């Protein structure tokens, strides 16, 4: 068990290392001049180029650049923004919690709604609840969440006029803070919800036809007892895998959802930075959003053995 945890953490660290190299190389393997976006093409100003190169650390040897960059990150120093008068670290400090909250809320909503929907769908197979949930989950996999968000906002702006956009900090208004995040989080969770519901249903239907379920029935275990006591636990491990895999697109979805709902998170920061060629900010955002995903998926993996004890034996 300890070995499994250690190996899993080691893998996560390795993934982060590769991501950091990728992000580091991003600015270096660009064809063309990274400073080009900041200069007048007809009349290039060498002092601007010198400033950009210095801020990106491009004026030193490669591996020195990498280690000073990564070393800075460990001390919270992400460099200065190339376009705005602040350090990237300051921006991250206020924006990271928003994205984290959004991602965690969406994950919890997706799992907490997806599993019960899948169970009901499996138990009431072929009935109204099952058919409805199958249609809805299928559609949710085919509709991009930003589209639902945009349409809801447009309808809202013509009719009910709730204040759905924007953000309030927890200190200013704890209730408003959560209500503003609730809709984006719910929309963000829909893809995960749909997949979890579908897999839960499929896995449960599979386990229902297993011998040991028949045995349990023969012993006289009643309907719901079979689901909760016998089938569900065995069906959960593959569902957890789906959660783990789907998290990547959920975390990626925060980038889009923050822009739709004007939330001051990492995603909106990242898109602004991409539009203004603010490379230091892009690097920091990509690395931190990636790290957020790696951390959450690590937690999901470490929860595995709690759900399915067989994994403890197999993996360790």
């Amino acid at each position, binding site marked *: 068990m300890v070995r499994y945890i250690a190996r899993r953490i080691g893998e996560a660290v390795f993934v982060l290392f590769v991501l950091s190299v990728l992000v580091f190389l991003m600015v270096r393997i660009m*064809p063309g001049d990274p400073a080009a976006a900041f200069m007048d093409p007809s009349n290039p100003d060498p002092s601007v180029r010198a400033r950009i190169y210095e801020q990106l650390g491009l004026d030193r040897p490669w591996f020195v650049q990498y280690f000073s960059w990564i070393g800075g990150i460990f001390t919270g120093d992400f460099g200065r923004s190339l376009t705005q008068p602040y350090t990237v670290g300051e921006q991250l400090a206020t924006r990271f919690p928003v994205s984290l909250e959004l991602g965690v809320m969406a994950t919890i909503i997706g799992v907490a709604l997806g599993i019960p929907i899948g169970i009901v769908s499996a138990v009431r197979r072929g009935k109204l609840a099952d058919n409805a949930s199958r249609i809805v989950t299928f559609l949710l*996999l085919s509709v991009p969440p930003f589209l639902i968000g945009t349409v809801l906002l447009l309808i809202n702006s013509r009719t009910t006029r709730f204040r759905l956009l924007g953000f309030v900090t927890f200190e200013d208004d704890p209730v408003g803070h959560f209500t503003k995040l609730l809709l984006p989080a719910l929309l963000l969770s829909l893809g995960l919800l749909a997949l979890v519901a579908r897999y839960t249903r499929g896995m449960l239907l599979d386990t229902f*036809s297993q011998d040991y379920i028949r045995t349990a029935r023969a012993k006289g275990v009643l*309907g719901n007892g079979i*689901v909760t006591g016998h089938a569900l636990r065995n069906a959960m491990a593959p569902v957890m895998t789906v959660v783990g895999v789907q998290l990547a697109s959920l975390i990626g979805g925060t980038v*889009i959802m923050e822009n739709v709902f004007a939330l001051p998170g990492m995603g909106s920061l990242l898109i602004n930075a991409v539009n203004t060629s603010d490379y230091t900010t892009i690097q920091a955002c990509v690395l931190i959003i990636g790290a957020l*995903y790696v951390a959450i998926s690590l937690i999901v993996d470490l929860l595995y053995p709690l759900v399915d004890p067989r994994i403890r034996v197999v993996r360790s």
Partner: protein
Amino acid sequence: MTVTVKQKAPRSGRTKIASELKLGLGILVFIFVASVVAAVFPPFSPTAIGDDSFALPGGEHWLGTDNLGRDTFTRLFIAAGTTLMISAAATLISAVLGTALGLIAGYRGGIADSIIMRGADVLLAIPAILMALIVRVIIGPGIIPLIIAMGIIYTPTFARVMRAPVLAMRDRDFIIAAQLAGTPAPIIAIKHMLPNALTPLMVQAAITASEAVLLEAGLSYLGQGVQPPNPSVGMMISEFQKYVQDSPLLVILPAIVIVAIAAGWNLIADGLQRTFSPRQRDTFEFLIPRQPLWRRMLTPFIGSGIPAKNSLVDTKKGQK
């Protein structure tokens, strides 16, 4: 007098093609044909600015015009064709790369396996949208960078999907027989192993394509995907939001097109799954039974009337 009787081929021997597959293919073929029409014989130039803004559908402009008087049909279906093309190209690239890597990893095993699968783990740990933005920063925005980014990011999934059946097949008799006959490893992999793992591969391809559609739409919505003046469905939605009062169709039509393309790929995935490995059941099974159409349309509301098979947790009878 001779009577020739044409005999129908016996149905039992043939694979019954799931209706999801037909429906999904139908949707995509329709969109493809419409986009070919829009691209090759456009009724109007997609970029020509007309003096008739916010025209309603019908007459000259089949689907109306936008704020600049550009023809919506032409722009919408060129955009739909672009989306379709990007999703297909990205899927094809990642499927070819991933299948090759998965075959090598599964068949060779050992060090090749470890390297390929660890590499796949690393790539899987990077959200697709981040990879797309990294590539966009390096080589600029546009269609080609999108295809490259998605081609990279979806490769590991195919490697995983391919590796598992290859591992299971490696010690089977027909593979060992081929080895003893002196067949070179690449031939064994392609001729004997690949066909036996085709179903999961095709299903994964369709799922990947639908994910690519949603990702492309999202990126274009943020202005990081397909660039103007090329029309793109995601961009149309973000651009026309502000005109929703003047012409709601300008948002509704692109929305329908995105959902139709993504749903088309998802239907194909479900249909392939159900056609070739029928153990996994039904997305829309209840819509197909041999009952009259009016009865089928009521099924979601009043049930099919057919008792569910193998249902151990039947709530109606036997449970007290």
